[in-house]
C-alpha cells in the first residue's frame, strides 16, 4: 500500500521546487514526485487530498528540551514528540540538560532507546560539551558522536571558561560535530529574570542586559575563527548578537545562528502583569532587538529557526516571577508564529522560511531529511495556510502548558505530519 499526497503546493527549497504536484510514498520513502502521480493510485492506497495546502519537508527543530530522563513531570520523550508532531515537526534535537546530563555514550544510547520505544518523531541527541554541564572537563564527545550525538552543547548554561570553549571547538571539529553555544555571561546575568531596560525598571525585576549575550557571542565567534571550527549560536535575541554574526559571516567565520518564535513575536513589554510564561532565557527583548532579528533573517545572517521548547510543570510556573523557571513550551505554536512574524510581515518568502526549518538545520548538523527528493525519507508536513485557530490548551500535547500565547488567534497550522512514511498527526490530532 502506498500513500499519495495529491495536488498540494509542494515547497522543497533544497530542490528549488514550489509548484502544485503529487508525491508518492512507499516503504518510508518518497518514491515519486510530479504532476498527476496520484492518478495511478488504486483502491488499496491512501490518498491525502492537499488542494490549497502546503506540502513541505518535515520540520526539523535543532533546539528543544524533552526533559527525559529526570524531568518526566515536565515532559517525556513520548509527550514531547507528540507535541512536536502536532507542531509539524518530524525531527527534534534534544538538549543535554537532563538529569543525569546526557554527557556520555550511555546517555545518548538511553535517549535513542527511549525515542525508539516511545517517540513518534525522530529524536536526535545533543551531547553535553562538559561533564555534568559543569564547565570544568570535556565530555567524551567522540564516544557520543559514534553512537549518535549530532552536536554538542551545554545549553541552559554558558561555558564560562574560554580555554575550555576553545578546546571544545577544536575537539568537536575533530569529531566532525557542531558546537551549539548558549551565550550569556553569568556575571552579567547574575539573578536577572527579564531583559534589563524600561520594563525591568517599571516592574522592579532584576534585569539581564543585552550585553550579557553580546559579549559571549563575540567571544565564541572569535574562538571559532581562531580554531577554524564551526559554531552555532542558540536562541539569538539581541541586535548586538545579530550584528556580530553578520560581520563574522562576512569575513568567513563558520558561524550560524538560530531564532526562536517567542523572540520574534514578543517583547519585554509582555512581562507586564508578571505572567511567568513570559520568563525565558535569553529574555524577551526590546522592539529594536525584535526588528534586528527579522532583519537578520531577511538578509541571511540568521539561517535557522528553532523552538527552544522548554516545558515546565504548571506548579513550577505558578510562582512569583523571580522564582519560576525559565522556558516556554513552544513546539505546538512555532509554525503559525513564524508565519505571522515572517510571512505575514513579509520578512521572508515561504520557501525561505521552510528552508530555515528544514534543509538549513539538516545541513548544519548533517542530518537526513530536510528535502522532498525522490529517495529521501518520507518526512513530510502538510500546512493549511488559511486555517485560523485560537491557541488553547484543548488538544495540547506537551505536558508543559507554559505558553504566553494562550488566546492568540493565529493563522496557518500544520494539519498532517508524516514521519518515515507513517502519518503521526492528522487534522491537528495525533494518530494513535
Amino acid at each position: 500500500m502506498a500513500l499519495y499526497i495529491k495536488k498540494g503546493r509542494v515547497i522543497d527549497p533544497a530542490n528549488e521546487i514550489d509548484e502544485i504536484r503529487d508525491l508518492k510514498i512507499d516503504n518510508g520513502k518518497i518514491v515519486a514526485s510530479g504532476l498527476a502521480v496520484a492518478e495511478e493510485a488504486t483502491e488499496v492506497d491512501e490518498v491525502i487530498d492537499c488542494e490549497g495546502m502546503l506540502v513541505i519537508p518535515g520540520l526539523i527543530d535543532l533546539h528543544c528540551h524533552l526533559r527525559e530522563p529526570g524531568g518526566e513531570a515536565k515532559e517525556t520523550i513520548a509527550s514531547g514528540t507528540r507535541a512536536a508532531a502536532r507542531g509539524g515537526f518530524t525531527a527534534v534535537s534534544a538538549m543535554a540538560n537532563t538529569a543525569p546530563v546526557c554527557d556520555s555514550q550511555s546517555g545518548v544510547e538511553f535517549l535513542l532507546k527511549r525515542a525508539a520505544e516511545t517517540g513518534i518523531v525522530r529524536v536526535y541527541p545533543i551531547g553535553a560539551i562538559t561533564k555534568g554541564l559543569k564547565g570544568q572537563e570535556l565530555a567524551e564527545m567522540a564516544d557520543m558522536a559514534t553512537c549518535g550525538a549530532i552536536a554538542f552543547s551545554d545549553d541552559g548554561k554558558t561555558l564560562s571558561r574560554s580555554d575550555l570553549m576553545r578546546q571544545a571547538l577544536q575537539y568537536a571539529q575533530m569529531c566532525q560535530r557542531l558546537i551549539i553555544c548558549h551565550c550569556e555571561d553569568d556575571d552579567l546575568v547574575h539573578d536577572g529574570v527579564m531583559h534589563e531596560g524600561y520594563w525591568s525598571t517599571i516592574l522592579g525585576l532584576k534585569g539581564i542586559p543585552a550585553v550579557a549575550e553580546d559579549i559571549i557571542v563575540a567571544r565564541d565567534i572569535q574562538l571559532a575563527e581562531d580554531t577554524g571550527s564551526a559554531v552555532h549560536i542558540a536562541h539569538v535575541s539581541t541586535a548586538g548578537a545579530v550584528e556580530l554574526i553578520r560581520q563574522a559571516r562576512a569575513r568567513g567565520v563558520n558561524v550560524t545562528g538560530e531564532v526562536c518564535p517567542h523572540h520574534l513575536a514578543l517583547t519585554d513589554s509582555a512581562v507586564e502583569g508578571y505572567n511567568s510564561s513570559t520568563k525565558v532565557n535569553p529574555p524577551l527583548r526590546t522592539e529594536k532587538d525584535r526588528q534586528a532579528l527579522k532583519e537578520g533573517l531577511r538578509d541571511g545572517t540568521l539561517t535557522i529557526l528553532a523552538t527552544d521548547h522548554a516545558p515546565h510543570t504548571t506548579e513550577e510556573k505558578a510562582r512569583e516571577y523571580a522564582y519560576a523557571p525559565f522556558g516556554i513550551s513552544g513546539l505546538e505554536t512555532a509554525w503559525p508564529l513564524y508565519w505571522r512574524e515572517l510571512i505575514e510581515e513579509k520578512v521572508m518568502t515561504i520557501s525561505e522560511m521552510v528552508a530555515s526549518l528544514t534543509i538549513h538545520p539538516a545541513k548544519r548538523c548533517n542530518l537526513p531529511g530536510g528535502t522532498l527528493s525522490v529517495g529521501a525519507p518520507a518526512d513530510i508536513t502538510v500546512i493549511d495556510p488559511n486555517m485560523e485557530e485560537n491557541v488553547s490548551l484543548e488538544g495540547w500535547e506537551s505536558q508543559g502548558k507554559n505558553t504566553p500565547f494562550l488566546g492568540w488567534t493565529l493563522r496557518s497550522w500544520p494539519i498532517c505530519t508524516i514521519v518515515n512514511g507513517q502519518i503521526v498527526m492528522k487534522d491537528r490530532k495525533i494518530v494513535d
Partner: protein
Amino acid sequence: MSFQRKDLLGLRGMTAQEISYILDTALPMKDVIQRDIKKVPTLRGKTVVCLFYEASTRTRTSFELAGKYMSADTINISTSTSSVVKGESLIDTGKTIDAMGADIIVLRHGASGAPALLGKHVKARIINAGDGFHEHPTQGLLDMLTIRERKGTLEGLTVTILGDILHSRVARSNIWGLTTMGAKVRVCGPATLLPPEIEALGVEAFTSVEEALEGADVVNVLRMQLERQQKGLFPSIREYARLFALNKERLKRCKSDVLVLHPGPMNRGVEIANDVADADFSAIEEQVTNGVAVRMAILYLMMGGGTANGSVH
C-alpha cells in the same frame, strides 16, 4: 466615588482623582488616631490578614493598628521568603487564608509581582505592602499626604528622591504618584544605582546631589541597604556618605522651606546626617502617623466605604 479596583497593587496607572480621594479620606482618620479612645466601629466583623514574607516592624505595625483602630480583626503571619521557596506556594497559602474568610490580605513580599500573582488566585482583596523593587503604594501615599499637609499642594513642587533608586519600591511608588499629581520629580544616586531608562518614567536623573537639590521643595531620602556595597554597586559606605548623604550644607541648595522625608529605618550618618533627621524641616515622625491614617483610609475604602466623611466621625 469609591475604590473600584479589587486590589491595590501600585500607584502606576492610578488617576489623580483616585489619589486625591484616598488622601482626602485619610485626613479624618488622623483625628481618630489622635483621640484618647482610638477606636471606631467602622470595620467591625471584618478581617485583615497581614502576610509578611519580609521582616518589617514599621509597615506591619502600621497596618495592624490601622485595622484595630477601625475595629477590624487583624492577624499577622510572618514568615521568611526562603522557607516558603521550599515549602507551600504563595498561591496555596493565599487560598488557605481565603478559605478562612479574610476580607483583605496585606502582602509584603521580596519578589516583585507577588501581590499581582496572589490577587489573581484569591477572593480576598490584596493590598501591596511592598513587593521586591516594584512598588510600595501605601508608602507613596503617606509621603504624598505628608507633603500635601506641609505644602498645601503637590502640583508644581520639585521633589528630589535621593539614594538607591534601582532597588527602591518606595522610589517607584513616589515617582508614579507624584508625577500623576503634577509634581516634578528628580532622582539622584550613584550611576550604578539608577535604573535603566528611568527618565522614561517622567523624571530627571542626576548623579550630582548638588544639582539634584537645587531649588527642591522636598527631599525624600531613601535607606541605603548596606549589603549593596558587597555586590560592587558602590565602593564604600564612607564614599557613599561623602558623595550623597543629605547634610545641612547640601540642604542650602534647596528652597528655604524645604521638607525632608525618609521612609525609615534610617542609617544616621550614612544617607542622612543626624542634625537633618531631627530638624524641624524633617517630617519623618509625621510620616509614621500619616502612614497609619493612609492605611486606615485604604482599608476603609477597600471594605466598601462610601464618602470620606461617611462613617468615620
